[in-house]
């Protein structure tokens, strides 16, 4: 029987189940396979804050959303074409994401009275007609997996752990994906436990075979490769990209990166990744807390390394005082803040871009520093690399903002050629003759960096106001004014090294959308739709939050309206309004979730129409 294959431009699939069900794992496999066959992808993993919330409860649901298509995607998709729900809780939590008439695959084995109760269903949705507007495929995934694996000799508990691969098999069939990549992965990963590898492979094949055999689905779908820029690609998450960006900075500058960090969701993986790279000249130090983490990094900078610290909101709060010292002593430092929803502990596993004002203004006294932001998972590589460049060029701490959505989400990354990466030049001051610690480069206003170990340039620095040039403690009033001005001007100067700001869309028009950070993808998608409709919308996505680009004033002047969509209660907008005195409007969402391109498009249209 030949398969009935329908070709689509793009598809969004979601795997949802209990956090013990391994949804992140099969989601990642589907994403990788899709990327490897040439699709562009966008992913959005969403999991509970608990390690293992009680099984079957609403709180315990873990979901992995994948968007793949034959063109340049920028998001994990607004709505899902297909939802796999391993239990009632997963169904309840995620059904609102499924398109009407979307494909809904459920594991019927888990729709028992107790499961329904845990998910707070009054009646069984599989039976009460509440799912009529979807294409419901009830499959006894658990039962079929047991069946498929009964010869493996594994116990039921171990067999049941394979049911995620059974469901992946179904999806592979449905979207005509090859099995071999995943099989390879399983074989490598469980090289030491071949029985487990085999069981999972059996389950995967079982799911696939089930569809072949039963003709459960009448049609299957295919998504052709995207026309991406030629090159070598891999799938990458934001946190891995950040780690690689730092390693690249170490290698390209010829200096060690020293990471002082304290684990915190969703930033911990950067520490995990970097601690593997000892052979790349990366030293990692898991400090006793965030304060020690940043202080150790500043210490390392003082000693001539690239000091880096990585954290999320509550951790950034603790670093505040030390960031001030790095500003005062004018030492390079990169602070990566993987933003998460707050205030306080907030929603540690949910995304938000609400640390902008904190990054820009959140220190005692006048203490300016550059703030830059990454716009997509793979862009974290560029952002952090650039943060190092600015930090060492201007002798300043730099805050690099990413967020939980970027950190855990993945997309294809066109792997750069090492030799094509911009060089990072670091020239320590070694000549003792005429050396003063606060002598500056006239172009950048950066002070000289002389490091311990170098004879003749011994000097003392600290947080008490320093006399210009000599760096000696100075309580002089006029000197304080001079130094305050110098600190300010130095950071302003960073902007003169920016590239021209890119405008997506026309240079003049009705509506200018200004955005930053992880919202790039959904805004870009919404923009593309608007441009196709011929609407007068243009888009500037900012890499540089502080100082803002010098050419932004001119760009803003060419538009009648300015909209600043943010996943916070209005932060960049305050800076824009203050600086340009433009009556920019905000579009804000604070739900721990990314924008959908649909809601953005609607907003753009509303503004142009209104």
């Amino acid at each position, binding site marked *: 029987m030949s398969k009935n294959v329908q070709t689509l431009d793009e598809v969004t699939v979601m795997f949802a189940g209990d956090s013990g069900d391994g949804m992140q794992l099969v989601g990642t496999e589907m994403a990788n396979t899709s990327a490897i066959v*040439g699709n562009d992808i966008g992913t959005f993993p969403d999991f509970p804050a608990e390690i293992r919330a009680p099984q079957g409860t609403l709180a315990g649901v873990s979901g992995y959303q994948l968007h793949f298509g034959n063109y340049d995607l920028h998001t994990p998709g607004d709505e899902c074409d297909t939802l796999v729900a391993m239990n009632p809780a997963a169904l309840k939590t995620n059904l609102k994401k499924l398109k009407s008439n979307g494909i809904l695959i459920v594991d019927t084995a888990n729709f028992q009275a107790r499961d329904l109760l845990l998910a707070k269903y009054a009646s069984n949705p599989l039976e009460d007609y509440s799912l009529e507007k979807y294409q419901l495929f009830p499959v006894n995934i658990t039962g079929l997996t047991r069946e498929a694996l009964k010869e493996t000799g594994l116990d039921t508990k171990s067999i049941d752990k394979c049911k995620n691969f059974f469901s992946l098999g179904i999806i592979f069939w449905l979207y005509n994906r090859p099995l071999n990549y995943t099989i390879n992965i399983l074989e490598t990963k469980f090289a030491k436990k071949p029985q487990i590898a085999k069981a999972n492979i059996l389950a995967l094949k079982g799911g696939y075979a089930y569809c072949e055999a039963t003709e459960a689905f009448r049609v299957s779908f295919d998504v052709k490769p995207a026309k991406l820029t*030629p090159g070598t690609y891999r799938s990458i998450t934001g946190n891995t990209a950040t780690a690689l960006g730092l390693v690249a900075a170490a290698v390209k500058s010829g200096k060690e990166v020293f990471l002082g960090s304290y684990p915190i969701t969703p930033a911990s993986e950067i520490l995990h990744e970097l601690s593997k790279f000892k052979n790349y000249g990366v030293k990692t130090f898991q400090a006793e807390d965030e304060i*020690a983490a940043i202080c150790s990094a500043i210490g390392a900078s003082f*000693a001539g390394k690239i000091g880096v610290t990585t954290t999320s909101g509550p951790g950034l709060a603790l670093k505040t005082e030390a960031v001030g010292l790095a500003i005062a002593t004018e030492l390079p430092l990169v602070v990566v803040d993987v933003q998460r929803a707050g205030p306080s502990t907030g929603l540690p596993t949910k995304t938000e871009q609400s640390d902008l004002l904190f990054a820009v203004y959140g220190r005692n006294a006048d203490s300016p520093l550059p703030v830059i932001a990454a716009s997509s998972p793979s862009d974290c590589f560029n952002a952090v690399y650039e943060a190092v460049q600015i930090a060492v060029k201007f002798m300043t701490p730099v805050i690099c903002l990413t967020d939980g959505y970027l950190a855990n989400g993945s997309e294809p990354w066109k792997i750069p050629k090492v030799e094509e990466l911009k060089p990072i030049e670091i020239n320590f001051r070694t000549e003792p003759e005429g050396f003063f610690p606060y002598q500056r480069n006239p172009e950048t206003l950066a002070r000289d960096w002389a490091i311990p170990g*170098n*004879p003749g340039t011994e000097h003392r620095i600290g947080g008490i106001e320093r006399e210009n040039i000599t760096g000696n403690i100075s309580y002089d009033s006029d000197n304080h004014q001079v130094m305050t001005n110098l600190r300010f001007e130095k950071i302003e100067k960073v902007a003169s090294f920016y590239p021209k700001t890119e405008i997506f869309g026309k240079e003049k028009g009705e509506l200018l959308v200004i955005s930053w950070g992880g919202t790039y993808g959904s805004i870009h998608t919404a923009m593309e739709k608007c441009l196709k409709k011929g609407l007068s919308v243009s888009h500037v996505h900012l890499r540089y939050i502080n100082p803002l680009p010098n050419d932004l004033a001119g760009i803003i002047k060419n538009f009648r309206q300015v909209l600043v969509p943010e996943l916070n209660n209005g932060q960049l907008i305050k800076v824009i309004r203050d600086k340009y005195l433009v009556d920019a409007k905000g579009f804000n969402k604070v739900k721990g979730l990314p924008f959908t391109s649909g809601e953005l498009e609607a907003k753009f249209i509303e503004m142009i129409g209104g």
Partner: protein
Amino acid sequence: MSAVENKPLTKKDFESDQDVRWCPGCGDYAILSQVQKMMPVLGNTRENTVFVSGIGCSSRFPYYLNTYGFHTIHGRAPAFAIGIKAANPNLDVWIATGDGDALSIGGNHFIHLMRRNPNIKVLLFNNRIYGLTKGQYSPTSEHGKVTKSSPFGSIEEPFNPTSLALGANASFVARAVDRDTKHLSSVIEAAAKHKGTAFVEIYQNCIIFNDGAFTPYTEKETKLENCLYLEHGKPMVFGQNSDKGIKLDGTVPKVVSLTDGKNSLEDLIVHDQFSEDQTLANLITHLSDNKDFPVPVGVFRSISRPCYEDQLVEQMESAKALKGTGDLQKLFNQGDTWEVK
């Protein structure tokens, strides 16, 4: 290029050009002078020496040494220091800190430093008061102490810094007194020669806010009665005429007379600063909690444990040996990749 290159360094070479700004008579002067004197003796060079401090009168220390120096923020010197040491293990890293700086706001970094054991020397200037902020009680101030912030007397049990350091697994613990400069020098020397974190508590007189706190241990007439000078391998004897000693009764130490015919030198505890077992060091450290005992000074404990930075370097080297110096392009291309043409 420094002119003194080939001449042996002297104390003068370690004096910076900054005016020393402590109150006249402050105990910090004596400590500074001893440290400046010891630097060349220990064979330290200016360029490879880094003094790190927090905030407090004592934390001004680095400004006065013509070495590299970092006056950081309150309580955090150990965190900066470990970053410096890990970044460049060849540097001689010293911390100058106060009782408030190290034990109040900085207590956590202090204890973590002790357990991690990088080769860093810690000089804690314990004047049992906050000097720089003008005289509040500190975590080492006596119970009942009347200060600006405790007008009715402090209701807090103080820390015993050496006991805290031992509780945190310190590999080297010692005590000295600012005005006993010769003894101080010998303790600094022992600390410098120890491989690992060396913690030295220095009793330091704050002439303005806590004058005389340590007179019993500095005045000729009283110090031999009140101090127990620890010497490795020697029985614990003290007193103006070496007429008293410390003896063990079960697990409890006792002061005994050496002149009443009941006890002799052989009955006394013999100091063993190298004992792997911590019991003795703990016993010593708690003597000063009890008014009936003399205050021990000298090296309490000095054991050998792997240094943090040695292990770090070793991991880096063996990673390189195992995997080769990292090839960046390979790292980028790691995992599943695919070509788009």
